[in-house]
């Protein structure tokens, strides 16, 4: 249902209970904020807000780079060891005629 249809529905069927002044406006603002939270510009803005505050931004940026460095060391060492282990097996195979035969 479009926003305009909802407004018309509210006008045709006024609430029976007394509603505080500005109630409808608050509801629409809440709906608007909820949609905004899920958008990329909002996420960028919020992250940007954090990062541009030196007290939060510098530790956050350092943490992001440190996580990335830790991940690189972990994956790099794993990948390097895997390569050397494969080459160790491969060496044993190439000097063994029985393995040539298989």
């Amino acid at each position, binding site marked *: 249902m479009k926003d305009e249809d909802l407004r018309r529905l509210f006008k045709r069927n006024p609430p029976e209970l007394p509603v505080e002044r500005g109630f409808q406006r608050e509801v629409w603002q809440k709906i608007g904020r909820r949609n905004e939270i899920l958008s990329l510009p909002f996420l960028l*803005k919020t992250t940007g807000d954090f990062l541009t505050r030196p007290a939060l931004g510098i530790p956050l940026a350092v943490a992001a*780079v440190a996580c990335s460095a830790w991940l690189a060391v972990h994956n790099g060492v794993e*990948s390097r060891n895997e390569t050397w282990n494969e*080459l160790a097996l491969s060496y*044993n195979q190439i*000097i063994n005629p029985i393995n040539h035969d298989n």
Partner: protein
Amino acid sequence: MMSKGLVVLGVVVLSIVTYFTIHSVITVEARAALSSDHPELIWLKREYSLNDDQFTKIQELHNVHDVKCREICRELSESRKQLEEVIVGEPLESEVVQGALAAWREQQVVSQNSILKHMEEVSRYMEPGQGARYRSNVYRNLILSGRTPHIDSNGDYNSEFILHLKR
């Protein structure tokens, strides 16, 4: 808004550059080995800390062994085929099966002896400690190869111990 977006982008780019730089530095040696003509020999050089002279000698030995290895492989393949042909249709005690089995076993011995000889020659060009380690590696992986399911991690027989196949 624009400058905040740039700050976020800057941190993301810095993190990505950090990741790839560190990963690349750690794996550079292994990647270089893989792109060489004989990656296994590059592994050997690194694993047993060979200097250039030792490596050149061992490379020559390896090339000689490789020719012998292929010849033994061809003979092994022939003896295995002959054995396969007769073992399914003839009685085990028959002369033809016994002959094929003997020929196949002989080729196995020739193969093991060639590995032992190569092991001995290669290890002679290594530092004594590295040579012993190389012999141990070849002996454990090529001479004693095969499953010994009741030998525990200390190398002792243990009837309670069962080594299961790893998948």
